[in-house]
């Protein structure tokens, strides 16, 4: 995490252009700019600036947006609900679809069911999220008019509307993720199904479903959980694009707007926040191993 903070700080430090000049505006004299530079501590040496920045970061201060002059934490806070809703829905849908797909493919390995699942998986890897998003919008929103085209409806204004606005974005964003998890589930299940204890369980006459779920899936859970955690990186990258296509007012939109306006503190804050979330989720995944496999101790 320290390395992440350092890299993210370096990004801002290496920023071309002078933030003070941007802040001061067109009518500023060089004296004005110098005063702002001093106030922001822009002339201090690298290690001092890094220290100060870390200190403020530790107090939950991500700096101030150059363009809107609002604290970055506040901007992120305003936009977090759509992003959380989108990623959470995608996560739930993907896991619920992908794990059964992978299990079925492994149980029927070599048959057309298996091949179909693998074909879906390769296809899912290959279609960029925004292409899929537009195909979905065109089919379900414009042609069939089943679902809203774009936009977001906050959850406190009704769960049904909220869900209707999130169905297509979640499917679009989840496809890559489903492909990834289904593939890993199948591989892990194939490994486990070749084990002796699975044969023993079958031999003593347990129902096939019970062997598959109770014995095999439980032992395949660790690699599956790992790939779910690592795949969050795909979700985060994809969420930025998905929010742009579906006009969801989330952190992805904030990022894209910040890029277009070169508002570096926001970009920095978003990268830091997403990376922290990613690291924490993967830590949680690591800890979940103990639940799936009691032999693992930390």
């Amino acid at each position, binding site marked *: *995490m*320290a*390395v*992440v903070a*350092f*890299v*993210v700080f370096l*990004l801002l430090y*290496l*920023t*071309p252009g002078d933030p003070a000049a941007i802040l001061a505006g067109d009518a500023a004299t060089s004296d004005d700019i110098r005063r702002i530079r001093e106030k922001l501590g822009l002339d201090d040496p690298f290690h001092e600036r890094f220290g100060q920045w870390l200190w403020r970061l530790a107090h939950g201060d991500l700096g101030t947006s150059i363009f809107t002059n609002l604290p970055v934490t506040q901007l992120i806070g305003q936009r977090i609900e759509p992003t959380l809703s989108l990623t959470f829905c995608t996560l739930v849908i993907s896991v619920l679809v992908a794990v059964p797909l992978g299990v079925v493919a492994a149980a029927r390995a070599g048959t057309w069911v298996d091949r179909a699942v693998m074909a879906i998986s*390769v*296809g899912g*890897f*290959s*279609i*960029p*999220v*925004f*292409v899929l998003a*537009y*195909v979905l*919008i*065109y089919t379900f929103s*414009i042609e069939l008019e089943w679902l809203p085209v774009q936009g977001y409806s906050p959850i406190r204004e009704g769960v049904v509307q909220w869900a209707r606005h999130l169905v297509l974005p979640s499917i679009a964003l989840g496809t890559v993720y489903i492909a990834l998890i289904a*593939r890993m589930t199948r*591989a892990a299940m*194939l*490994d486990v199904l070749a084990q002796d204890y699975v044969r023993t369980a079958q031999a003593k006459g347990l129902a096939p479903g019970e062997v598959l779920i109770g014995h095999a899936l439980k032992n395949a859970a660790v690699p599956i959980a790992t790939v779910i955690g690592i795949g*969050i*990186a*795909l979700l*985060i*990258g*994809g969420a*930025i*694009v998905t929010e*742009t*296509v579906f006009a969801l007012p989330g952190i992805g939109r904030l*990022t*894209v707007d*910040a*890029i*277009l306006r*070169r508002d*570096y503190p926001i*970009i*920095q804050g*978003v*990268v830091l926040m*997403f*990376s922290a979330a*990613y*690291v924490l989720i*993967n830590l949680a995944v690591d800890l979940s191993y103990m639940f799936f496999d009691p032999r693992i101790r930390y």
Partner: protein
Amino acid sequence: MAAAALDIPKPVSPTWRNFREALRRHPTAIIGALVLLAMILVAILAPWLGTVDPQAVAPVKRLKQPSGDFWFGSDMMGRDVYSRVVYGARVSLTIGLAVAFFSTLVGLAIGLVTGYIRWLDAIIMRVMDGLMSIPPVLLAIALMALTKASMQNVILAITLAETPRVVRLVRGLVLVLREEPYVTAAVAAGTRLPLILGRHVLPNIVAPLLVQATYVCASAMITEAILSFIGAGTPPNIPSWGNIMAEGRSMFGLANYLILFPGICLSLTVLAVNLLGDGLRDALDPRLARRM
């Protein structure tokens, strides 16, 4: 004398024989290779494929639906989308192949060194862990936000985002290989380090690295499209597939072909690269093929 009369087949190394057999068993890989080859040909032959200048603006012919004159329609500046898509193949393929090449090369170098020189390992892997905890697309976006939009910078940004994964793969393989008896034997025989790495370790890494390179290539093409799509990629005047789709974003209701055609091309190319990668993996590593 009798032995000479026997029909001794020409010695074929087992790896290559398996390779050809596996390719025969995986027609999808061949389809992938053919599609990719076709795309590369399209990219090279772009000026002779019935295209006009992809930048030529014709305000009178704005937003024409696909027809005999404009095979894929025209955009809001009257530029021919077919020509732009054909020329866009150059951008996507260049970026995909360049990123695959550079990140493989850099990843291989760093991975070999960290896997073999223990004291460097701790330092470099911390840095790589740090880079890897930033989601790759996000890292590329952040890097692009800092620099001027150009092809070189896009390649550089995506390479930086993709390399840590290559490093980890190579390092993992080297850590296993260095314990092999033949490496110990080479060390005992007094072989110098560069020779050990080059002759005993490297050949065993090539196959998985090649497979990884195809996935990096596929991922780089998608990342480029994402970057261009959100306005942080190749400069808007270059007709890359991502840029064409970015322009189509605001016109989706009027001109969905602006997204449809480059989208199909991008998906097809990425699919081809992925199929090729899967086929290569099955062919080069039968043990892994059973698992994945």
